[in-house]
């Protein structure tokens, strides 16, 4: 009864909003919303995410759509500003009448939008990193990227295997770096890692040699970790080489795009990082079950945009595909039904790894989804 009324109300709302906004759209399309950091400090996340969504919605529609209906994508640019994101979330729910939401490039924007979708009962697949998005679990909120905590664990696991114990950290003070910094401090002890130097840099800083100079003089230093995204890690990597460190440098999954290697240049040689298989698509053995998905996405994205693939766009791909499969399984576009099916996602093969959702896990990835990569000769290779 209540769902029926909700549905009717929603249908009325969709119809009303659609009539007001664009006369072309009708009830035979499925509206999917998105608010991404297409510009601003996190645009290197939002830009490929938006391009991926647009590309694949087009592909899906050309292939006949979902449940016999065409998808309609509504994308807004929140510039990673939480207040703007919140407004767009309201607009998507109230005016655009979407049935599901993908995006929120940054954790701050995602957290600000969550109440809107929880209140409206619309499934929300976030593309942001921090673990707080799905921990504790919220009924309508899901996310596709690996958490920063998993990245820390993967890095420390690799260090432990190499007998590294004394580690210096240099973290960005943006949301990503700050959050991962905290997670890494939290789990370091589990791997017998001691943080012997702890420095930070601002999101727009252009020189990190002072911080790295301090790290270099930390006694017994065996490795350096750099949680952060954007141009910061590229500059850290260059400064790292400039100062002539003789220990390994670990980056995070926040630099998992080809542009990092281009920006860091020679200095990127030997840098290790945890990332999804997407970056080494061609190098995967044919037996790898993920190979088909990642090579397919990579080829499609690079052909359509002319830009090298990044894992960030991959997260948007995973979110969209999971959503489409959930709608197909549900056989309807009812938000509640989509949510229920999303939660039942099992064995989904995405660019980030195999996803197995459950009522207590709205991420569904485990550590095996991460591969440890190393940069050699200007390209990613599997480290193990």
């Amino acid at each position, binding site marked *: 009864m209540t769902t029926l009324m909700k549905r009717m109300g929603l249908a009325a*709302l969709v119809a*009303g*909003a659609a009539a*007001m906004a664009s006369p072309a759209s009708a009830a035979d399309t499925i509206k999917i919303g998105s608010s991404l950091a297409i*510009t601003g400090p996190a645009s290197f996340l939002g830009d490929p995410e938006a391009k991926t969504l647009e590309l694949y919605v087009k592909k899906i529609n050309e292939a006949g759509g979902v449940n016999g209906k065409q998808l309609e994508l509504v994308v*807004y*640019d929140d510039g990673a*500003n*939480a*207040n*703007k994101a*919140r*407004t767009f979330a*309201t*607009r998507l*729910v*109230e*005016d655009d009448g979407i049935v599901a939401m993908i995006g929120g490039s*940054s*954790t*701050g924007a995602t*957290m*600000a939008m969550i*109440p809107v979708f929880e209140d409206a009962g619309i499934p929300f697949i976030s593309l942001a990193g*921090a673990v*707080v998005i799905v921990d504790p679990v919220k009924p309508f909120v899901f996310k596709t990227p690996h958490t920063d905590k998993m990245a820390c664990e993967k890095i420390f696991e690799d260090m432990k295997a190499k007998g590294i114990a004394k580690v210096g950290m240099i973290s960005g*003070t*943006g*949301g990503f770096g*700050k*959050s991962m910094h*905290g997670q890494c401090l939290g789990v370091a002890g589990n791997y017998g890692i001691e943080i012997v130097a702890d420095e930070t840099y601002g999101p727009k800083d252009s020189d990190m040699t002072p911080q790295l100079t301090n790290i270099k003089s930390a006694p017994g230093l065996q490795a350096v970790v750099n949680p952060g995204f954007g141009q910061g890690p590229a500059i850290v990597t260059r400064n790292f080489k400039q100062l002539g460190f003789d220990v390994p440098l670990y980056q995070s999954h926040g630099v998992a795009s080809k542009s990092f290697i281009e920006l860091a240049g020679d200095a990127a040689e030997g840098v290790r990082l945890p990332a999804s298989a997407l970056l080494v698509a061609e190098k995967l053995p044919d037996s790898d079950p993920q190979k088909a998905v990642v090579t397919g996405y990579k080829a499609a994205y690079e052909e359509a945009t002319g830009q090298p693939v990044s894992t960030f766009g991959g997260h948007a791909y995973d979110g969209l595909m999971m959503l489409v499969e959930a709608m197909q399984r549900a056989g309807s576009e009812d938000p509640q039904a989509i949510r229920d099916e999303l939660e039942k996602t099992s064995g989904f093969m995405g660019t980030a790894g195999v996803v197995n959702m459950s009522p207590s896990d709205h991420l569904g990835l485990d550590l095996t989804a991460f591969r440890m990569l190393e940069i050699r000769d200007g390209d990613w290779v599997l480290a193990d």
Partner: protein
Amino acid sequence: MRALLAHRLAAPVAIALIVVALAFVLPSNFYLRVAALVWISALAVIGLNLLMGFAGQVSLGHAGFFGLGAYAVAVLPAQFSLHPLLALLAGALVCGLIAFVVGRPILRLKGHYLAVATLGFGILIAMAIANESWLTGGPDGMPVSRLTLFGWRVRGASTWYWITGALLVLGAWLAVNLVASPTGRALRALHDSEVAARVAGVDVAHYKLIVFVISAVYASVAGSALALVNGFVTPDSANFIHSIELVTMVVLGGMGSVFGSLVGAAILVVLPQVLTTFHDYEHLLLGLMMMVIMIVLRSGIVPSLAALIRRTRP
């Protein structure tokens, strides 16, 4: 008609009428939310306009006070289980005190030097908010507990529309009262000629400080309101870009015009929503419109249009 427009209460009455009238026109919660954001920004802009437009003192750091107000209603209830309303008042008090303490040395500076000093001060606050994660949740922000009044949970776009609208009308009313009072005359006097104001007996440093404190309290209350509406705060509310936005709203709408504050806020809040249809060209158009408005209506929209009307219809 002209006498009506010149009346002291013209601006708050007009604002009140707009708030009431729009409530019947706006078609959905989204529009109500955008309107509430306009009311909140306009409140902060009225405060800043008292400082900039009436007293002639620039502040490029007002988002700092806005952010402190926002974080007051986030942090105080979370850490000390203070009621959000008390937290709002505490935030306003703290902002007033901080403004009082830093205002004295800062306001001795003039013009661009004052601008850079307030800029630095605002950046210090923004940095503290972004970096002290143990208290503020860091760059990713923190949730704000829902406002409860006498057991009733305040929620829903239309409720917030009315609450923020009422706050704005109150703010506008207080502002026009102040402007028309002996204090307001002293402020406007020191804007035009500090030395003449001093000769007339105006303690210029004291009055600059008073208006700085008042404008800080306006910003703080507006920040608290935004945090309560959103149920979530991030350091964006305190950063430099937001300070610049507030100043731009003051100048676009018109320095020294209370009603202009609403117009300036409305333009910068609504325009990005309209421009979303232009996707990649959004920022290009925003910058272009700012330039064109300022070139054509160089005293700000409201004062320039008012002058135009006076000239054409004597």
